[in-house]
């Protein structure tokens, strides 16, 4: 059993690692374009029509043809344009740090609100089932009605039948 588990683990690791290695050693244009940023417009290169994005595409095509790995191509682009060219996400510093913090804070606030609501809902259900008067079999599961309303309803029915 232990050997079978070890074999499964190795197969699983290989199944994940093989495509990643292929992507690193033989990157495609689509991968590189979606993982790099146009330094002029800030969109990923595959979304950009800026002239410099055209040049970047030509550069990537030439480097792929020359056999460069994905890391090598990205390093060359960083050397030309700075680290922001391979960081589609906002930088993790200064004001831009908020772009990372706010979603996490929002999720935490939503989780807390959901938790509080769930606790309240659960308590109310407990209160409804235990504390109220015993149910009247004649009500057939319906909540007790307004006494005055029921009296008028009986009168109307009696008049109708009489």
């Amino acid at each position, binding site marked *: 059993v232990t050997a079978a588990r070890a074999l499964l683990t190795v197969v699983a690791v290989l199944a994940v690692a093989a495509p990643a290695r292929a992507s690193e050693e033989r990157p495609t244009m689509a991968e590189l374009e979606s993982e790099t940023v146009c330094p002029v417009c800030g969109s990923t290169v595959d979304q950009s029509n800026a002239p*410099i994005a055209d040049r970047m595409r030509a550069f990537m095509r030439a480097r792929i043809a020359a056999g460069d790995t994905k890391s090598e191509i990205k390093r060359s682009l960083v050397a030309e344009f700075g680290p922001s060219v391979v960081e589609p996400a906002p930088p993790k510093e200064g004001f831009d740090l908020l772009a990372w913090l706010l979603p996490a804070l929002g999720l935490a606030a939503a989780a807390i609100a959901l938790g509080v609501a769930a606790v*309240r809902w659960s308590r109310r259900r407990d209160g409804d089932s235990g504390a109220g008067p015993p149910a009247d079999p004649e009500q057939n599961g319906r909540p007790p009605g307004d006494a005055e309303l029921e009296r008028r309803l009986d009168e109307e029915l009696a008049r109708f039948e009489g």
Partner: protein
Amino acid sequence: MTYALRVGQVAAVALVAALLGLLAWKLAEDEGRRESGPAPSFRLDRLDRDGSLSLASLRGKAVVVNFWASWCVPCRDEAPILDAAWRKYRDRGLVVVGVDVRDFSEDARRFARRYRMSYPLVKDDGTRVEREYGITGVPETFFVDRQGNLVGDPIAGPVDASEEIERRFEETIQEALG
């Protein structure tokens, strides 16, 4: 329940107010284009030869700092005017420095050869220097006097965009030369 609702409403209003505050802080933090005071310093690798060039090394000279890129169409027409100014005033102590931004170095060198840019050319370090000057696009030109201070109004766009801008370009060079 009413109490919880009220707390929720207060929290929502506080959140919106906090976000508005952050927006105001961000707007206040953005300095925009630098137009006066000491020119932001830089030491950048040269494109036209080996080595680097710092603004500090040009103290005592008037400097025209021109931000450009090889993919910038108006920069083609502007380059000969900048080169002519550099040749005309260099004996009086003017240096034109072209700062290439968001560009491939090889494209920039090819552009410089094609448009005969003989003045010193450097390449920005990522986007650091352009951010310190607060440029909004290329081309954009700043003027630095002999004491290292920005003078005149920066020219956003080509220096030959109109007769008025060409005149301002000349006048501000004279002001920088002192």
